[in-house]
């Protein structure tokens, strides 16, 4: 029997704000432990929460970007459970009236892991439905010491957006693609930096298996707190295999909360006693409901960016780029913006895209920011290459200098004596010299070894110090050899 997996995700995203969700403490990673606290986020007796407008707007914006319905009226609820990293022993979250409901994400093939981009699943442009998006406060961070645990509450109370998907996913690769797509959109909206290193995206996954085509769901297990996209993929792969193995050998899956041990590469049942999920939600009497119609919604609408898919399609349409080129540019909005401003100064945007995506990206590690190069110069460089005045190797050479010196590409090429020789007379002289100096290669070519022409080309390139137009040389050599 074959089995299929049913996967749903709960994605927690740290919002990019100056301050925490319910107090004016800084929302900042990496500070001295317990230095970003006040009576509110430390849960001191008597302290009261006041919601951060920016966090609400960013959540609404996320909903707009993902096609959710924005609730005209939302409220905050208390979710009650005891845990030492939670200062009040309840979390202020949203239960039955979240800010956003529904919505969806489409998974483009390039969002899949590299090794799976060609698979039919990746090519299907699957749409994954969302259940809801709500806003809640984060908890502190625990450090497990030998006999005690140590808690840093700096993160406690920072704004966290929870995005819940329908169980529409069936493979670890789809989960990977969903998270990649989501991350890109969130960055587009400037909602979050989604920095994995800083734990800005954390994911709980629900997973069950069932015989392929079955209608009922199997018993699900939850894997908590996965903190990178690749860990989600690995954990799901492991968990699906182990559930299938269990079920196909006659066993049953028990509902359980697991954690992923990345070092060991396996999921492990959590030891904390489950409180039967009796969270006793009720509306937080300290907080007023939030009415989104009006200013909050208008503000979010005003911040709606062009989304990655839209940008990709527009880049293809407007500049004639390939889907791949457009996708890579769209995945890096500042780079795409740069491309578009440089494109105003060139007749050949495709050459420009190649220069940016092949040459600049290869140089990026050691080169300064692209922003230091005037887009006009970059456009000019693209013209030099597309007009065959520089060959591609020379183009990259000029680019490397251009990134460091504020001179025009033409100036740089002249200074360095870089110019592609396309002049027929000059090239012909080189070619005749090559034929005269390499009788053996000429004889081989005549005898039918077509590849022998390469040795002649190499001679010409060497003589011309690499400046000859290789395409032209090839054509000229062929003609001259035919004459003889």
């Amino acid at each position, binding site marked *: 029997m074959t089995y299929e997996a049913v996967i749903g995700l709960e994605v927690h995203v740290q919002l990019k704000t100056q301050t925490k969700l319910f107090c004016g403490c800084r929302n900042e990673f990496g500070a001295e432990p317990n230095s970003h606290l006040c009576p509110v986020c430390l849960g001191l007796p008597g302290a009261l929460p006041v919601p951060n407008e920016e966090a609400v707007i960013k959540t609404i914006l996320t909903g707009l970007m993902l096609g959710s319905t924005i609730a005209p009226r939302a409220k905050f609820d208390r979710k009650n459970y005891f845990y030492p990293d939670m200062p009040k022993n309840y979390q202020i979250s949203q239960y039955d009236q979240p800010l956003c409901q529904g919505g969806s994400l489409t998974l483009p093939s390039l969002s899949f892991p590299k090794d799976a981009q060609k698979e039919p699943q990746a090519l299907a442009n699957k749409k994954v439905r969302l259940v809801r998006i709500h806003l809640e406060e984060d908890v502190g961070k625990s450090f497990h010491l030998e006999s005690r645990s140590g808690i840093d509450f700096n993160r406690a109370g920072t704004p966290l957006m929870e995005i819940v998907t329908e169980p529409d996913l069936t493979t670890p690769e789809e989960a990977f693609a969903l998270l990649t797509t989501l991350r890109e959109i969130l960055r587009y909206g400037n909602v979050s930096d989604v920095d994995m290193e800083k734990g800005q995206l954390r994911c709980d996954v629900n997973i069950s298996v069932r015989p392929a085509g079955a209608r009922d769901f199997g018993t699900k297990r939850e894997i908590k707190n996965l903190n990178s996209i690749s860990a989600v993929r690995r954990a799901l792969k492991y968990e699906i295999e182990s559930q299938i193995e269990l079920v196909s050998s006659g066993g049953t899956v028990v509902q359980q909360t697991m954690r992923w041990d990345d070092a060991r590469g396996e999921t492990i049942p959590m*030891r904390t006693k489950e409180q039967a999920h009796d969270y006793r939600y009720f509306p937080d009497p300290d907080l007023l409901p939030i009415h989104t119609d009006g200013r909050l919604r208008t503000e979010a609408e005003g911040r709606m960016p062009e989304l990655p898919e839209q940008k990709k399609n527009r880049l293809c349409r407007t500049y004639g780029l390939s889907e791949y080129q457009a996708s890579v540019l769209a995945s890096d909005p500042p780079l795409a913006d740069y491309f578009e401003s440089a494109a105003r100064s060139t007749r050949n945007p495709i050459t420009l895209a190649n220069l940016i995506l092949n040459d600049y990206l290869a140089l990026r590690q050691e080169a300064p920011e692209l922003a230091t190069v005037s887009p006009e110069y970059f456009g000019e460089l693209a013209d030099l290459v597309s007009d065959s005045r520089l060959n591609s190797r020379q183009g990259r050479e000029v680019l490397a200098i251009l990134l460091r010196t504020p001179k025009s590409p033409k100036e740089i090429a002249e200074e360095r004596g870089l110019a592609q020789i396309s002049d027929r007379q000059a090239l012909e002289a080189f070619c005749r010299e090559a034929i005269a100096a390499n009788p053996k290669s000429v004889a081989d070519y005549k005898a039918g070894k077509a590849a022998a022409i390469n040795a002649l080309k190499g001679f010409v390139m060497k003589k011309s110090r690499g400046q000859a137009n290789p395409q032209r040389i090839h054509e000229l050599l062929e003609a001259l050899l035919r004459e003889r």
Partner: protein
Amino acid sequence: MPTLGIDVAYVADLARLRLSPEEIETFGNQLEQVLAYVKKLEEVDIREIVLIGEEKGFQNRLRSDCPLPGLSQKEALQNAPQQASGLFLVPRILE
């Protein structure tokens, strides 16, 4: 007195109260009395009531995203029953 059968031990566990058997018994009886009394709420017609949870003019009292002064690390930790290296120490959390 009708027995409503409150699982006092379960509720106490949710509330992280460790009760003695004597307390479970006494509180159980007292709670059942109170709950029998509150049953009278069933007499009230509550259909058509929608809870709104706010007074007029109290909507959307949000804070602008500007940092405000808080507690120093020393002040934050001043009441900690146990602390070390700037952290609150608690009994070990099992994962």
